[in-house]
């Protein structure tokens, strides 16, 4: 890894794309997949897209260097972004730099967390971000490269090199990329960014240091309360950090499940209340040693039940995905927050 004494612009001689990729891998710049070449001209085209947002970036932990727009753009170029994606990428970076996000902790931990990036508002369609079928999966350049660009920034700017500063025991495929859009069109309630106080016409990036999505499969329940029984059961897991980390989590409801819940009169607030009350883990599912640790660090049970959240407000809810009877639970690292940043116009 190069240090801060390096030049911002490097002459690498006459390399073709394959040779550049070998060079980049040797430098430790790669996530393992092929990279685009961050030429000065490509980088300049990206930087031009964020001229309306000239707020300086703070030092990026753990490496504690202040990036330039050029060095950030170099990562977005390498990830395969289009220039117009760059404001969403820088918004995501600003989100993970929220002190409450705890970037140092989330990058250095042995936990598998990765930065979840959710896009709301008009930018979803302007940038071609998939909000529907397979929204967490492959096939969409914007989803794939916006999340990847943030990951490369955390590697190259923050210094989260796997096995060195990034100490994750097993890692997580979401560390390659984890970006999706809200399905606002099939959300029968309020879009997430509006829940957080933004205008419906704002484009907003939301970030949380989370695990990959845990599927909540329910083809059988035909009632809202039936679906929430399944959701709560799937969330009540003794193996997630939230059992003792007590941080935020997302429940991303599929549109068909959302329609059933809405039909039965559930609101986002009542879903939160119901899930908070029922997604608890019985003491019989937690080892004696862990119970002792949890209790000694202030995570006391309510009777025989351990809560997975501090309050209903820790359970963040929105709608994404396409047809089908699936939803998703995304537990967080624990000691983190859900940060929202408006994409600069």
């Amino acid at each position: 890894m190069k240090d801060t004494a390096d030049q911002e612009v490097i002459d690498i001689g006459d390399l073709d794309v394959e040779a550049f990729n070998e060079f980049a891998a040797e430098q430790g710049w790669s996530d393992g997949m092929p990279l685009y070449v961050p030429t000065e001209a490509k980088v300049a085209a990206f930087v031009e897209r964020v001229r309306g947002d000239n707020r300086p970036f703070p030092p990026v932990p753990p490496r504690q260097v202040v990036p330039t727009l050029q060095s950030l753009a170099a990562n977005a170029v390498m990830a395969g972004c289009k220039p117009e994606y760059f404001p969403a990428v820088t918004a995501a970076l600003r989100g993970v730099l929220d002190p409450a996000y705890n970037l140092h902790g989330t990058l250095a931990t042995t936990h598998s967390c990765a930065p979840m990036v959710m896009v709301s508002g008009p930018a979803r369609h302007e940038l071609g971000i998939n909000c529907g079928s397979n929204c967490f999966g492959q096939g969409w350049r914007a989803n794939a490269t916006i999340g990847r660009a943030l990951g490369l920034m955390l590697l190259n700017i923050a210094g989260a090199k796997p096995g060195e500063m990034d100490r994750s025991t097993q890692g997580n495929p979401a560390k390659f990329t984890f970006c999706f859009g809200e399905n606002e069109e099939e959300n029968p309630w309020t879009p997430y960014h509006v829940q957080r106080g933004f205008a419906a016409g704002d484009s907003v990036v939301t970030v949380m240091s989370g695990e990959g999505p845990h599927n909540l499969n329910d083809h059988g329940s035909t009632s809202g309360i039936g679906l929430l029984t399944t959701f709560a059961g799937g969330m009540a897991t003794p193996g997630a950090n939230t059992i003792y980390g007590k941080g935020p989590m997302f429940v991303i409801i599929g549109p068909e499940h959302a329609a059933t819940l809405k039909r039965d009169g559930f609101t986002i607030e009542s879903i939160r209340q119901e899930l908070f009350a029922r997604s608890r883990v019985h003491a019989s599912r937690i080892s004696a040693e862990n119970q002792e640790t949890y209790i000694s660090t202030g995570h006391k049970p309510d009777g025989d039940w351990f809560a997975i959240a501090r309050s209903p407000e820790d359970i963040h809810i929105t709608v994404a995905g396409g047809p089908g009877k699936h939803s998703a639970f995304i537990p967080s690292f624990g000691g983190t927050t859900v940060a929202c940043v408006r994409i600069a116009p």
Partner: protein
Amino acid sequence: MRIVNPTFGLAAAAGETVTLKPVNWKTDAIALFSNSKPNARELLDGIRAKLGAFRPVDNIDFVAKNSASQGAPKELIEKVAANYRGALLAIAD
């Protein structure tokens, strides 16, 4: 070919340099600082037992962060600096 260095960053302002004072490990007050993971306490228990074998005074205290996943608050670090001559940090997982 000229490319932009994706690792480039400007060094943040350097922190204050402090002068370390010598510690008398036989008598000075010592903090055993845990990162709040269960195995850190195991390590520190062992160190306390070893230190107790040759120290004539019992002025070793355990200190822990509020959360295993978050950094120690500044106030806690200042409290340790004010009350102890030496601190041993366990970062076990």
